[in-house]
């Protein structure tokens, strides 16, 4: 389609406006709702109407919500560090060394990341009970490896393939072992990729729900998605929409800021990995 012709059409800009509105509106409306209290909550307001922090105060002061945030931060960070550590060496081998069955191995790793997580739920449940980490953060850290590790390996492999061969050859001629090549030569070049992959894996771990729901049994060990998913009022009928929206905004704003800062890198990582975070 010819670009110039399209841009002259007012329809094009209308489409742009619709896309932006559709994308942003639910988040905007959650923010508006999170500042509304009492009867204001039960009137539809398209524009910010009141500005009341009491929903935020209610969320932060009660029901272990702060604890859940700390749980999520700890779990997601540990998972990412663990996955990156294992993935850097593995992706060096997958991207840089020719060996038989490499293609098959890559496909298997990809297959694991596309696994229906429910298929391993029963087996993982048993494993976690057996090790004795049920209802602890370690249950999540262990189980999140199933999607963070294949994903980081996959993305880092595509990044590493693109690094010039000459640098590596020069290092080898100088007598560098593969370990030295990774730590001294590739790691400094790879850190932008590590930031991207780490961030995407972090978002994936932060957002996970099925394992976190199944492997925790008390309010103090819940992660943020479980805490929000199960946040309920005094009675079944009375859903506390104000606090729920406040909690949603609290956990989403940092993510949105991170995503906006690292936009370009995230898009590059997403399209390289092709895996939803």
């Amino acid at each position: 389609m010819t670009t110039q012709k399209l841009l002259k059409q007012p329809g094009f800009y209308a489409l742009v406006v619709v896309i932006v509105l559709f994308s942003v509106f639910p988040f905007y409306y959650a923010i508006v709702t999170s500042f509304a209290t009492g009867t204001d909550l039960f009137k539809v307001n398209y524009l910010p109407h009141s500005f009341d922090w009491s929903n935020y105060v209610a969320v932060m002061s009660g029901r272990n919500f702060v604890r859940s945030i700390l749980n999520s931060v700890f779990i997601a960070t540990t998972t990412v560090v663990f996955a990156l550590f294992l993935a850097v060496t593995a992706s060096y081998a997958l991207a840089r060394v020719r060996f038989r069955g490499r293609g098959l191995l890559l496909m298997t790793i990809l297959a694991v990341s596309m696994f229906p997580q429910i298929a391993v739920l029963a087996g993982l449940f048993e494993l976690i009970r057996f090790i004795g980490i049920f209802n602890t953060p370690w249950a999540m850290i262990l189980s999140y490896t199933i999607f963070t590790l294949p994903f980081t390996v996959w993305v880092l492999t595509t990044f590493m393939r693109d690094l010039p061969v000459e640098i590596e050859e020069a290092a080898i001629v100088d007598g560098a072992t593969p370990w030295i090549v990774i730590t001294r030569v590739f790691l400094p070049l790879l850190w932008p990729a590590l930031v991207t992959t780490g961030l995407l894996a972090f978002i994936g771990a932060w957002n996970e729900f099925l394992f976190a729901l199944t492997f925790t049994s008390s309010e103090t060990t819940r992660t943020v998605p479980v805490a929000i998913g199960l946040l309920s009022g005094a009675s079944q009928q009375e859903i506390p929409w104000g606090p729920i929206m406040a909690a949603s905004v609290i956990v989403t704003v940092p993510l949105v800021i991170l995503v906006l800062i690292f936009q370009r890198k995230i898009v590059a990582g997403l399209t390289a990995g092709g895996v939803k975070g």
Partner: protein
Amino acid sequence: MTAAPIAPRKAGLSLQQQRQRAAFWFLAPMLLALICVAAWPLLRTIWFSLTDTTLSNLYGGTWIGLDNYLSVRTLSSGKVIYRGTLVDPAWWNAVWNTVRFAVTSVLIETVLGLIVALVLNAEFKGRGLVRAAILIPWAIPTIVSAKMWAWMLNDQFGIINDMLLRLGLIDQKIAWTASTDTAMYAVLMVDVWKTTPFMALLILAGLQMVPRDIYEAAKLDGINPFKVFFKVTLPLIRPALMVAVIFRMLDALRVFDLVYVLTPNSAATKTMSVISRENMIDFDKFAYGAAQSTLLFAIIAIFVSVYIWLGRVDLSGEGNR
């Protein structure tokens, strides 16, 4: 990569062999981790599905063969009783819900994603802003988006009913998430909102590989833009599109969190993942749920194999090297 022509440092080992040996040790920890969290639990799940294990007594199960899937028993009166997942209407309802959800959502997302990608591929003022805006739904946790939309779709105080009433599209408020007629639409709406950006970005990556001079040539020849799109652009981005579709499809077939939070306990939306977990954890039919999740795994595995085989999709990216 060819080995550099230098003398091997260890007796008897060429550089290539040395590298391969190192590669093995580099891969071993990752493989071990994946075996622990993926292969072993999967095998255990399949094993559990062939026993009568319960949640309260994980090691007390006995082998019952395929009875969780299908068992046929003839009573003394001559009446034949079929039991198991394969004759469970609730299971088939979940299969139907999942397939309906996956096909519809991926179809809508592909079309919308294509439109958004074409928009982002054009050069205009504020393109960066649009790209930033569409990343927001992607970044929001699924549970949070489910809650945000549950509030917007609220029957009494929801803004969506209010909008539709004002526009005159409906004449009374709709209980989107609670009513069995509309629950699936609600789930589809949220999923489309949340995952179209991902689709758009993957397609955009494909679009940006199309050389610009092709469009120039088509323009000089005076070919209708729609014809250019269907005859030139679409065939060229087909590989990217195929990969995007399979990723989204796999994601949609295993959907759990959105359905679980947005429409809890609604038979109209309950998917295979939801019903498996419900049996496994909530109803203490651990082995029965394991059988259902094994079936889901088999369905997805078959689907992927057929898709890759029919579409000749190159997922590994090795082909273009």
